[in-house]
Every structure is written in C-alpha cells, then in structure tokens.
C-alpha cells in the first residue's frame, strides 16, 4: 500500500469501516430479495489509470453498473456492479420480467437502478454516521455494457487521477452476486481516516 502511504493500522480501519457500511447494504439487499446475503472481506487497492478498466475483471464482460457521485467531506464515486445474468435474476425476483433482456426494458432497468440506489445509499449513510462526516450523493445512473467501457467513463467523470483507490466488497446470495465499490477522490481518504482519528 506504499503508493498511497497507508499504514497497516489505517488499512485495517478502512477495511473495517467498509465492512460495516457494506453490512448495512447487505441487510438491505437481503430484505429486498428475501434471501440470505454473505459478504467478503473488503479489499483496498491502488489502481493505476491504465489498469482501471480491468479492475472488475475482464473488460469485455457484460455487466450492469449503478453509479452515484458522492459529494461532501469525503467525495468520490460509488458503484454497484452486477454480472448481467445476476442482474436479470434480481429484476425477475422484483417482479419485473426480463424475457427480452435488459436493453430497452425500462421497468427492469428502473428496478435495478433502485436496488443499486438503496444498497449504495445504505452503505454511504452508514459511512457518514460512523465517521460523522457529511456525505451527499447524486441520483443514480445505470449502464448495461462492457465492464471496461463503464469503468473508463466513471474514471473520467470529474476529477482525473493517475492512481485510484478502489475499495470493494463482494456480495453473494441465493444465485445473485455483486460488487460494491467506493473510489474516493484525492484528499477524500485523508478526511475519512481523519474522522476515525488516524
């Protein structure tokens, strides 16, 4: 973690904070889908711009991404990523049938956007409460496309950094999985850690 100069203590605190935030999101998902949801231990990594498009796996893979911009004391970007097939299953479970797939299916896209919004909202609200920082966020946007194209566009929306801190937690439930990710802007991480007294 040398390139962003985090001590192991700070890294632990960041993982723990993310874990608590993500647990709130997992509870929300569990209620929405009426299923048990398990979480992986969060990972914190520094990703150079050149590697950003493959941070969530194969850049050519088809994914669904819900994206919120975060403003306030710890600005950044929050993403919820689903594999396409998982997104279809989630939409089906929310009574929005996807016989023809997701393209042009406004009902299903809107349902998925709301799922992402609820999960990311629970995560960010928990983060704000734990750190006593003020966090606001945009309305959600959704995209169904190649993972590389989605991540490239997210990285170019707003501040341009050469290295991104990518904090992510994987979710898995009954035949559904997803990844919650938070990418703090420069300076944001310092505020987040500062609020934890580190």
């Amino acid at each position, binding site marked *: 973690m040398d390139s962003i100069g985090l001590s192991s203590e700070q890294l632990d605190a960041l993982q723990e904070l993310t874990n608590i935030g993500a647990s709130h999101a997992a509870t929300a998902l569990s209620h929405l889908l009426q299923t048990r949801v398990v979480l992986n231990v969060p990972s914190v990594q520094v990703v150079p711009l050149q590697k950003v498009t493959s941070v969530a796996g194969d850049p050519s893979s088809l994914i669904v991404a819900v994206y919120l911009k975060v403003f306030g004391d710890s600005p950044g970007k929050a993403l919820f990523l689903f594999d396409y097939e998982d997104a279809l299953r989630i939409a089906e479970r929310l009574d929005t049938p996807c016989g023809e797939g997701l393209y042009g299916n406004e009902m299903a896209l809107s349902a998925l956007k709301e799922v992402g919004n609820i999960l990311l909202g629970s995560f960010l609200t928990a983060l704000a409460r734990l750190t006593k920082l003020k966090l606001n966020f945009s309305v959600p946007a959704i995209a169904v496309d190649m993972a590389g194209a989605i991540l490239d*566009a997210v990285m170019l929306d707003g501040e341009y950094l050469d290295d991104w801190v990518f904090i992510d937690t994987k979710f898995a439930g009954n035949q559904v999985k997803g990844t919650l990710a938070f990418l703090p802007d420069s300076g944001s991480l310092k505020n987040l850690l500062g609020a934890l007294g580190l």
Partner: protein
Amino acid sequence: MSAMINVGMAEIKITKAPNRLVTTGLGSCIGLCIYDPVSKIGGMAHIVLPQVTSLGDGDPGGKYAVTAIPLLVENMLKFGANRYRLAAKMAGGAEMFTFQGQNSVLKIGQRNAETIRGLLDDAGIPLVSQEVGGNFGRTIEFNTENGELWVRTINYGERVI
C-alpha cells in the same frame, strides 16, 4: 502469423502488417488509429483526455490528445511510415451515463472527439472514418493489412470503418 497487440488505457502502440492493434471496452476514451497504406504501418493511441490536466504523472504517452497525436506520428515516422501518406480513423468517445441536467462541459467523450478532429486537421492528417459518440461501449481492432477498423458493440451491432 498475425499478432494481436493490446493497447491499454493511455498507451501508444505501433506495428506493421499483418499484426492487429486491439482495445477492449472503450467508453469515453478514444482509440485513434493512424495508418500508412503503402508501408502498412499502423499505430493506435488509447486517448483518455483532450488536454493535459496534471504534470509529471505516469503518462505512457497516449493519455492526452494534445501530446498523444504528435508522439504517435513521430513514432510512426521512426518506424518507417511516410508523413504524407498518413490517414486516421477513430472510435469511442461515448457518454456511458447520463445524469439529469448534466452540463455539456462534462461530456468528456464528445470533447475528446472534437479535440482530436481539430488536432488532426492542424497536422494535415485526414480523418477518413469515425464511429464516435452514443451511450455504448466499443471494442476495436485495427487491421494493418488493409487499414480496416473493426468496431464491435454489445447491443448496437458491428461495423467496419
């Protein structure tokens, strides 16, 4: 034997026939290909931003349109291409997400495309075809054997430009 050469974000790669230059999953970024049809030398820059936004960073050469185009041309000439035969093609520059009320200043894909067009014009390199804009990602493959740029999308079909 034709090799597939991957051009990562912000990179520039030059090769010659029969090799192919490939970029997977272009969003707002632009894959700019410049080609000399006689020597069959082709180059691709995976351009991220129009203008230089920070100095002394890890730019592998192709990050900014303003610096990537001269470097791409210079490297192609060193490789043996002829300045007066060069022609360009480009793809990418999409807006993957739309937020309500978003200002056009933020439309980075469109700004990338406009800046590249202006720079090619200034350099006297004709832009012979392009496949830019929209709200979808593109995977591109440039064939140095015939100068064809193959553009593949997930839901908007495939085109050769």
